[in-house]
């Protein structure tokens, strides 16, 4: 995104307004509910416009006609019970008229019964986790935009900040129920095209549902301030026809089961220091660096430094280090990663933390060590 000269702004603005008309108004969306919501939005908007034209019209008429400079003498009246009752009653009736369609839409939106597919959506700082009920499929979904684009070192892509590594895949034409919760702070799962926005509250489960009409890619993002990277946890949903969806979920399930098997087999394998460090650096940068920073220095007062910290650099603390990464720290922002990463990934990231940034302990942690710590 290059900077545009200021004088061209109004021109550019109207041009982009024409080409992307949708982007100046509420999303109409691809579900029956989202279209009802859109219609409701437009109805209230038009009612407000009419009231505005009448009230402001009278006001401007008065400002133009009843001015002192025209030599007006002020009238003496200062109350009129009939008029006052009238302008209390009329708005009341308009509001009742608005409340009726709003009520029926709301009741439809909150009916989560008889779902075909159920998905558990879990927010955490700063990514989403999706788990398909009755299937062996679950995965994390993180921002896919490169950090260099955010830092203005690379040009911004078309879907800047609205792209993820693993999108949620849903079938069209079926009622999908979302069970929304959180692992840490409050997040909010929002996809405008479905008119679904539901808070993810830690320790509680909220319900929402949708039925998507058309296959396509739909984008949204977290809508509740959830800390530093609140602006960087987008949502991408790919809607597939039921046939394509069935194919996708079977394949993904088979892949995930095979991967779990492979993990068990890998337990006996020893990795070399170089392999551990290479994998560890990758995992660290995608999972840990948001808080502890790529240089391991953390952010003072909020996220502790790992470089030179006793836990990550003293040999006697290695068990403590593994425990913290696996189970998190109660009462702090440090999450439990035992379920988020594979044993190999955990082993490599801990090895990396114990050997990077001058923490040169020379120690290696293997997947088998993690397995042992988990079974303790």
């Amino acid at each position, binding site marked *: 995104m290059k900077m545009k000269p200021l004088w061209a702004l109004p021109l550019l603005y109207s041009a982009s307004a024409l080409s992307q008309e949708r982007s100046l108004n509420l999303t109409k969306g691809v579900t029956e509910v989202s279209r009802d919501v859109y219609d409701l939005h437009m109805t209230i908007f038009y009612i407000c416009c009419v009231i505005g034209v009448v009230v402001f019209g009278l*006001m401007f008429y008065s400002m133009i006609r009843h001015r002192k400079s025209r030599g007006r003498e002020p009238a003496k009246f*200062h109350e009129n019970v009939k008029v006052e009752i009238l302008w209390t009653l009329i708005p009341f009736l308009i509001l009742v008229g608005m409340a009726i369609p709003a009520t029926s839409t709301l009741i439809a*939106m909150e009916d989560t019964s008889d779902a075909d597919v159920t998905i558990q959506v879990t927010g955490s700082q700063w990514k989403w986790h999706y788990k398909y009920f009755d299937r062996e499929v679950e995965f994390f979904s993180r921002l896919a935009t490169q950090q260099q684009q955010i830092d203005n070192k690379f040009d911004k892509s078309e879907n800047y*900040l609205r792209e993820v590594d693993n999108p949620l895949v849903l079938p069209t034409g079926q009622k999908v129920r979302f069970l929304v919760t959180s692992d840490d702070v409050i997040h909010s799962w929002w996809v405008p095209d479905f008119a679904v926005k539901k808070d993810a509250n830690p320790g509680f489960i909220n319900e929402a549902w949708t039925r998507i009409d058309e296959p396509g890619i739909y984008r949204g993002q*977290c809508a509740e301030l959830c800390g*530093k990277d609140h602006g960087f946890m987008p949502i991408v949903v790919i809607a597939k026809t039921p046939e394509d969806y069935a194919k996708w979920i079977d394949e993904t399930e088979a892949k995930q089961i095979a991967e779990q098997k492979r993990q068990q087999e890998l337990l006996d394998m020893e990795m070399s220091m170089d392999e551990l460090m290479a994998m560890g650096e990758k995992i660290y940068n995608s999972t840990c660096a948001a808080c502890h920073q790529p240089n391991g220095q953390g952010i003072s*007062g909020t996220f502790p430094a790992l470089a030179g910290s006793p836990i990550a650099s003293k040999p006697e603390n290695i068990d403590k280090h593994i425990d913290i990464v696996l189970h998190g720290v109660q009462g702090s922002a440090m999450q439990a990663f035992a379920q988020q990463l594979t044993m190999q990934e955990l082993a490599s990231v801990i090895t990396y933390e114990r050997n990077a940034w001058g923490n040169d302990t020379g120690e290696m942690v293997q997947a088998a060590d993690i397995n042992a710590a988990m079974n303790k």
Partner: protein
Amino acid sequence: MSTVVDDHNHEAHHDHKPSGITRWLFTTNHKDIGSMYLWFSLIMFFVGGAMAMVIRAELFQPGLQLVEPQFFNQMTTVHGLVMIFGAVMPAFTGLANWMVPMMIGAPDMALPRMNNWSFWILPFAFVILLSSLFMEGGGPDFGWTFYAPLSTTYSNDSTALFVFAVHIMGISSIMGAINVIVTIINMRAPGMTYMKMPLFVWTWLITAFLLIAVMPVLAGAVTMVLTDKYFGTSFFNAAGGGDPVMFQHIFWFFGHPEVYIMILPSFGIISAIIPTFSRKKLFGYSSMVYATASIAILSFLVWAHHMFTTGMPVFAELFFMYCTMLIAVPTGVKVFNWVATMWRGAISFEVPMLFALAFVILFTIGGFSGVMLAMTPVDFQYHDTYFVVAHFHYVLVTGAIFSVMAASYYWLPKWTGHMYDTTLARLHFWCSLISVNVLFFPMHFAGLAGMPRRIPDYAVQFADINQITSIGGFAFGLSQLLFLWLVIKCARGGEKATAKPWDGAEGLEWTVPSPAPYHTFETPPKVE
């Protein structure tokens, strides 16, 4: 000339006011305290405004240019806290201090020493709050709404300072409110019955009751945040049997009446200015009083409309939607009354009137988006987007702040004894009016298009809207420097103001000379 000097000496002798800094430190005079409140509020308006400039500069383009996300979050949080508790509320308390005793014919506020205290703890609260920005780890960064557990388990070390600062602001507000209530109930001049009080006095009386009702609730909320974070309680932690959504219920039980605390005194100001410059009595005085009271009562029944997405039962969502929509009725009555007051009057457009008219139109636009937000199904789409940001800035900036500007232009001659520079004042008005709309109107579109609030960086399709918004923001910020210049200029000199500079004005404050003497109404006036 010599007579003027004599007058001055006589006055100084008569007033017994100490000179220098001690006059301001120890004063129990409602006019001194009112002036300090107003100056404090103006300073905080610029402090909070500077933070808004940082926000708008970062959002000028997509990508991260100037500040880190964490600092951005501190800016949005402290901007909100400073503007609400530092700019708007002290401005209204300052106006109440100056004007309520003069409007009801009382010599001073009923509890002058408490009045001094309620002002002087405020600067300390804000020193604590603002200095927390310089701590290791930074200041509060969880939004001015400080939702748990972001503000408890996941917050930085400065949270304790935030909690204590809010406590002090709350104590200050409660003392100010007690003072207003006691003054209005006990110190009205003979003949000044309740239904003869100016509407500014009425709206402040009701506001003061709201303050006493809800500030302790806020104090409770911040105390629970404090003990959850530092002393291991679990009010808002599900793992210990608490509930994070309960925090929001408690917070908004304070928060919703709070938004009326910031707008009811505005209604009073506008109800004084429009009749003056329409040269016609206020239309529907008693319905104005009843409308204000019903807005205040309804304000306790609508808090959960801030929380529609938290997963409430349908019944609760319907209840809060209906109650919220109901508020449009008394608010509408007020707007209709103002228009009816202008109707067939003899209108002129002095600067206070310009601000008052802008208030009526722009506040009503904020009211329209308010009705839209009240509709639960559509709120799911609007919630936590820039549509909400646009809405509350229309009611708070072009509502509350514009009314404070209108009040300042209306009563400045009474406070300083000088007429201000009208050309400069008009320039300030037109610059503010245009830039404020360039600033806040496009935010509606950003929100509808799907831009969430409180994000330091955004998708490229929002780039144009944000650029326009930022330009409006810088222009609005700069325009306010004109106001500062004007006020200083007016305080230092200018054309001498008469006791009643506005020919259509009514009320006891215009019966005393300009500038208002240090002590007024030591003998109560008689009101027929």
